[in-house]
């Protein structure tokens, strides 16, 4: 498990990363380079997918695969022990949250389709048979609700995505978003309640 509480004194990045590397992209993204953020996403997505796939093959049957644990493992692989500033880490986890959300919803849709008898072609994700532990319809409904939340309350949605999809602690989420832990807790409680109510409706 990586530790995140290292001092954030590393903007210097002693060694020069090749521009395509994740660390380099993270630094660029942290400096506000939107292109870098865009190039980051597919890399993280690929890595998460590959991890999920290999885990599904290798893990002891019945082993639970935590989406958030995947994100953390992806961090270890892509960033390793390179010290990162909090803003770079934030960029990473924001991209990861987005990627994880995409993986979950893609898979849910595929599962939903196969459940309804369509589309028997094996697609990459089916090969890993990645499953969320709830009903595909629910995953989809949740995803749609998160999108609605993001439209109306971007900050609550940010907290939700970092906490839920990337598995950040309250503390780390607060650091990532530059706000207090108390705020994170309140936003999280609100987002959760609002989504719950949306899904109940």
């Amino acid at each position, binding site marked *: *498990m990586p530790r995140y509480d290292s001092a954030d004194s590393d903007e210097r990045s002693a060694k020069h990363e090749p521009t395509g590397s994740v660390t380099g992209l993270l630094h660029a993204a942290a400096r506000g380079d939107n292109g870098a953020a865009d190039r980051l996403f597919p890399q993280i997505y690929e890595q998460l997918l590959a991890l*999920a796939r290999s885990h*599904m*093959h*290798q893990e*002891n*049957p*019945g*082993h*639970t*695969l*935590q*989406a*958030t*644990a*995947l994100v953390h493992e992806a961090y270890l692989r892509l960033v390793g022990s390179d010290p990162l500033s909090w803003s770079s880490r934030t960029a990473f986890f924001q991209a990861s949250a987005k990627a*994880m959300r995409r993986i*979950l919803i893609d898979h849910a849709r595929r599962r939903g389709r196969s459940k309804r008898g369509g589309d028997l072609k094996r697609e990459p994700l089916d090969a890993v*048979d*990645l*499953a*969320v*532990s709830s009903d595909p319809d629910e995953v989809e409904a949740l995803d749609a609700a998160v999108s609605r939340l993001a439209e*109306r*309350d971007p900050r*609550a949605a940010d907290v*939700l995505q970092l*906490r*839920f*999809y990337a*598995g*950040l*602690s*309250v503390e780390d989420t607060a650091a990532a978003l530059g706000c207090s832990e108390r705020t994170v*807790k*309140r936003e*999280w*409680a*609100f987002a*959760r*309640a*609002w*989504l*719950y*109510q949306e899904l*109940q409706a």
Partner: protein
Amino acid sequence: MADWQRVKSIFEQLIELSDEDRDRSLGRLCEGDVELRAAVERLINAHEQAGSFLAMPTLDRRRGEAEDVIPGKPEFLPSRIGCYTPLEAIGEGGFGTVYRARQEAPVRRIVALKVIKPGMDTREVIARFESERQALAMMNHPNIAPVLDAGATEEGRPYFVMEYVPGEPITAYCDRHRLELRERLELFVQVCHAVQHAHQKRIIHRDIKPTNVLVMSRDADGQHDDDVQQGPASGAAAVARVIDFGVAKAMDQRLTEHSVFTQEGMLVGTLEYMSPEQADTSQVDIDTRTDVYSLGVLLYELVTGSLPFNPQTLRHKGYVEIQRIVREVEPPRPSARLSALDGVSSVPKDGRSAEIARRRGTDVRTLIRKVRGELDWIVMKCLEKDRARRYETANGVGLEVERFLKNEPVLAGPPGAGYRIRKFVRRNRVAIAAITGTGAALTVGFLVSIAGFVAATRALDLADDQRQLAQHSANDARRAADKAEAVNRFLQDMLSEADPRNNARRDLTVREALDRAVARLDSGEMKHQPEIEAAVRLTVGRTYIGLAQYAPAETQIEFAVDVYRSLFGESSGEYADALQQRGTVRKFAGRPVEAEPDFRTALAIQRSRGETAAAEAAACANDLATALLDLKRFDEAAQLQKEVLSFARRPENVDKPILSEAINNMGSLHLARGEHGLAEPYFREALDVNRRIVGDLHPNVATNLDNLAQTLHSKGDLDGSEETYREALAVRRKLFGADHPDVATSLHNLAVLHFVRGNLEACEEGLREAFDILRRMNGRGHPDTLTVADSLISVVGASGRLDEAERLLHESYDAVRDDPAIPLARKCALAERLVDLYRAWSKPDKADEWSKKAEHWRALETASTQPSSG
């Protein structure tokens, strides 16, 4: 939603308040804005109900093991629970949350605190825990982490306090450390010792599974046990500790329909380790062998890396199917499972079994070779469906594994002697399944209880009439002039001697009264009034039918047939009526072949009498159709049934019993033909009609219910079916008491349903009761008795009690052998079952002997069904 920011801000203020303060502040903060208030309230409710919603997205293709202890992302740590301060959440699951917590008093120490999620009766949970508390306190074993305390949080959720074990689930530990088979088995032996210790203190765990068996490295004290490369980790260097003793019992976790579907996470995690007797909801009797079963599943998983039953399969099955699988399906031997994984692995590199072997520090072939044989036998002995075949104790399992490790011979053996018996058992399961599957075809004479209809109704109506008569006796007696009055007076006398109101058991009273009446008639009391005597005897006979006393019934009716024929002639309505009664009693006695000509003759007579006898003709046609149904001549039956129904639907019959009878019998016809979809609406309509014209408590209602239940069963609605059967049974017991063939019908049908649901004990119990009733009431050779006996033999055989199966088969055979009314095929089938039994029993001489008898009947049957060729 009202203004987003205002709603959000009020919500955020409110959630920091206590419940009472919340209510008070809500009004103030919303300042009378109804819409705003509603929006906030909805959110607050959602907040309170959200529970573990969005706790963690989990990816798991194989199993919803929700209890995996994972480093949790604490949400809001409760500040204090009792005298404990939670430090971090270390586990999250369907049951609730586990915290690492600090205890302040009376001693300062770190504990694990398991807080159960809302939804359980806290007082009951704690009371159940308290009842076992003393025994729990007496446990003292290095491989047990004791449960220290239980209590309730301020919100009223139960919690358990346990010694904190900084370990990980045994399977995860073994895999992460790549423990070899031997090391895994050594750890497993520790678990057996722990469970044995608890058993000696009379504590059954009830929920043994990897997440309740935590392992930590001995040297590391569990604290720094993080890396794969940690020197030679081995089973001996590791300590297993079993947690959660007493918790499962306190939480009363059982497989129930409700829990499977609403608490999937929790129960699915437990399902795969659940013993057959736990899967049986009616089975409350759990003993140490239940834990032996779960130990077997754990051993299976440690050895093969997979579970006996594919969790994916289990998860996607309904409750009934899960029960069935756990109770009936024999899982593959561990070595076979490993081979299968190897064989079917379609994954190009890195197949699952290769990986599983790698985690055990070996290759697939070597692993399979090590497992095949003794270890297979040990695991399979733990997993026996019948707990009497398992190891008696956890120690038994532990010693056995130790013997294996020391290369000493194990006690468990290969499937040898028992094997053939098991195969027989399985065949018997197929046999009873066949009864169910083709239920309609086999059960027309019995399960489709047109039977109860006519006779029972009439008996009851009669009893009612007679009670009324008894009440108006003064008037009626004075006008006693004609035949009907004479009959009534006789019956009235009979009944006033045995007033049903003085006796709780009405059927007994009526029976006594009937016997007394017959005695008086036989003594010649009415010998100068033959016509009246015949009418009385006919009524007495009908009443006997209602009580299922077919032999005395037939004697009385036979008398009436003779008298009417000589008094009124063979084309009279009276004669036809008596014939119809004789047909009825013959049909009920299981002799539809003899019933048919009676009904046909009666029908012809009534038809010849024209429109005045239209109702009588319809009644005869109705009876004839049911007899044809018994004879499986469906087309002829259908033809008649349609005529009867169109007559019954005439407006003047809207309140007549013929309407519901005709509708019901149409349904029965469809059911007998396997057309469930067509049958159901008829039964429902008949039920409506009957409830309208006769009320809820009536034999016809029970018959409709029974038939409806069978239809629901056929189309797979087991819950609806069971409920409906029980309703029918309740009505019948109220009407007839405990001893009546119709009660037996209901019992048999419920038993078949129990069988389908995998509840063999309840099934057997029901069958025995039904069998007992029918044997006494109808005799051993009656087709209904034989049908129930067949079912009972299957169940008894399925439990391996071959001697009892043998005895029952012989009884059935002896009862039918010389009865010409019993179809040859049935006699042949009984002989064949005996052959099967003796083969399974390794009694070849007897098998041969019965094989010859079966051959004899088969030859006769073939001859009888072949058209004579000249």
